[in-house]
């Protein structure tokens, strides 16, 4: 195997297993499942809708991920800095990019696991009626992509500090702004002074609006591109932050 892929795979498998070294993973999965199911059935009105789809399930994902992705991403770098292991990692013969990608993929795979554990809901709607499976598959994919973008941002913030709590709060605030970017709450803060195209640009970044389109089964290249480029951009910034800290 190519040396770079090998080190990405090694970091990935160490980080992925580290999620399960503490009860954190179990707690996280339980909270995610309980919240997503609770929201779907009790708040989202799964049965009252009288539709065999998962719309009331996916609608909550941006709000759940807003909190849960910073929780998954907060330890990725802050903990390395606090424990001093960062000194070991950065003196191994591997590139910073390989570390950043390996860590991100571990968190993203953990997210995939969390999402996979919700598939019994899919079976429920299959039993109850004949849902549009294409829409559900696209929604799962879109949900995972959006989670990836939020996770990459959380990892990035985590690289700025040695304190996991600060990393969590910072990432949650930034995630909130991105999720809400299409709404007046954020846009009205810009309208007074920013040029029109900036306002449009910010609006087009809105995770909520983009995710909404995906869950309606519109798997647009533009939306996929947005989330993928957010991931790439955040990881690139992550690498720059980690490298810049060497000179600090």
């Amino acid at each position, binding site marked *: 195997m190519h*040396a770079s892929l*090998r*080190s990405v795979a*090694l*970091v990935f498998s*160490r980080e992925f297993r*580290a999620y399960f*070294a*503490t009860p954190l993973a179990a707690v996280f999965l339980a909270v995610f499942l309980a919240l997503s199911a609770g929201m779907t059935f009790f708040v989202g009105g799964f049965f009252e809708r009288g539709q065999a789809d998962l719309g009331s399930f996916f609608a909550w994902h941006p709000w759940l991920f807003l909190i849960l992705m910073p929780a998954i991403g907060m330890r990725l770098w802050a903990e390395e800095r606090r*424990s*001093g*292991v960062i*000194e*070991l990692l*950065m*003196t*191994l*013969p*591997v*590139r910073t990019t390989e570390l950043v990608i390996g860590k991100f993929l571990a968190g993203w795979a953990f997210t995939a696991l969390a999402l996979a554990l919700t598939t019994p809901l899919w079976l429920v709607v299959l039993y109850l009626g004949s849902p549009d499976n294409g829409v559900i598959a696209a929604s799962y994919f879109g949900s995972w992509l959006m989670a990836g973008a939020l996770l990459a941002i959380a990892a990035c913030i985590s690289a700025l500090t040695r304190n996991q709590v600060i990393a969590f709060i910072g990432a949650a605030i930034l995630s909130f702004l991105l999720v809400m970017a299409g709404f007046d709450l954020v846009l009205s803060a810009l309208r007074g002074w920013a040029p029109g195209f900036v306002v449009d640009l910010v609006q087009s970044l809105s995770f909520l609006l983009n995710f909404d389109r995906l869950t309606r089964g519109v798997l647009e290249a533009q939306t996929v591109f947005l989330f993928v480029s957010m991931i790439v951009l955040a990881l690139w910034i992550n690498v720059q932050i980690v490298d810049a800290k*060497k*000179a600090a």
Partner: protein
Amino acid sequence: MQLVQATGLTKTFSGVRAVDDVSLTVARGEVVGFLGPNGAGKSTTMKMLTGFLTPDAGTASIAGEDVFRRPLQARARLGYLPEGAPAYGDMSVGDFLVFIGRMRGLTGVRLDERLAEMVERVNLEGVWNRSIDALSKGFKRRVGIAQALIHDPDVLILDEPTDGLDPNQKHDMRELIRSIAAGKAIVVSTHILEEVEATCSRVVIIAEGRVVADDTPAALLAKASGPSTLRVSVASGAAAAVGPRLKTLRPDAAIEELEPLDGAVRFLLRFGEDAADPAALARDLAAAGIAVEEIGLYRPSLESVFRAVTGTRPH
């Protein structure tokens, strides 16, 4: 070839110059003791040698590979024990060493061989499956040494490997460093002078970010004590009588009376360039009927070495 070569390393943290124009070379087979008080810039210098910190000015190379221009090649030749021996506490000793070994490119039989050698060399037999968080300080430090040695590097940089260990563990660690010294270039930082004497072939003293001495341990001690100095301890009650007698017995020596310690008064007799002969002085004192508690060559403390080379007190 010099395995470690650093020139003009300089680092400033928010206006404070932590390391100022430090140059250092270490050849194969050398163990260099990096000595200095806390905050003198030892760790910062070591972090720059490993490439973990980028210096404001200066260069560093490991086994001929520039640490900042060819970092991967340089790091491949380097083993590093950071201060406090950080490790993934939630992993077992075995899993952790396998992870580091693989990250360093070891696989298959070669990895197994190296792991087996680490178990034997660093004595990790009993703790292989224990989680690192559950280990004593001494074992944690050993795990740190093992991860630094796993790929059999040419250069080892060990930041305070004995700090916080009990005397037995310190002794074991020194033995370990001595046993791996052949064929490698090792830089060990410490603030304990005895440690340097026991393990190092050269001492570099750093104070306030600058190299103030670079010599063999023996030469450095000689510098601090002068070429030949004898120390004579007598019971403090006899001190008043003994002082003048010493003067008449050794008129060519400069005599200094130190502060009393544990009920004894110590005199230092400095002989300048002449060789001092403790045995002869002991005979003469006995013949003169002076009861002496102890007589010997004067060995300065770390503090006096520091004063001698830096003109300041440590801490």
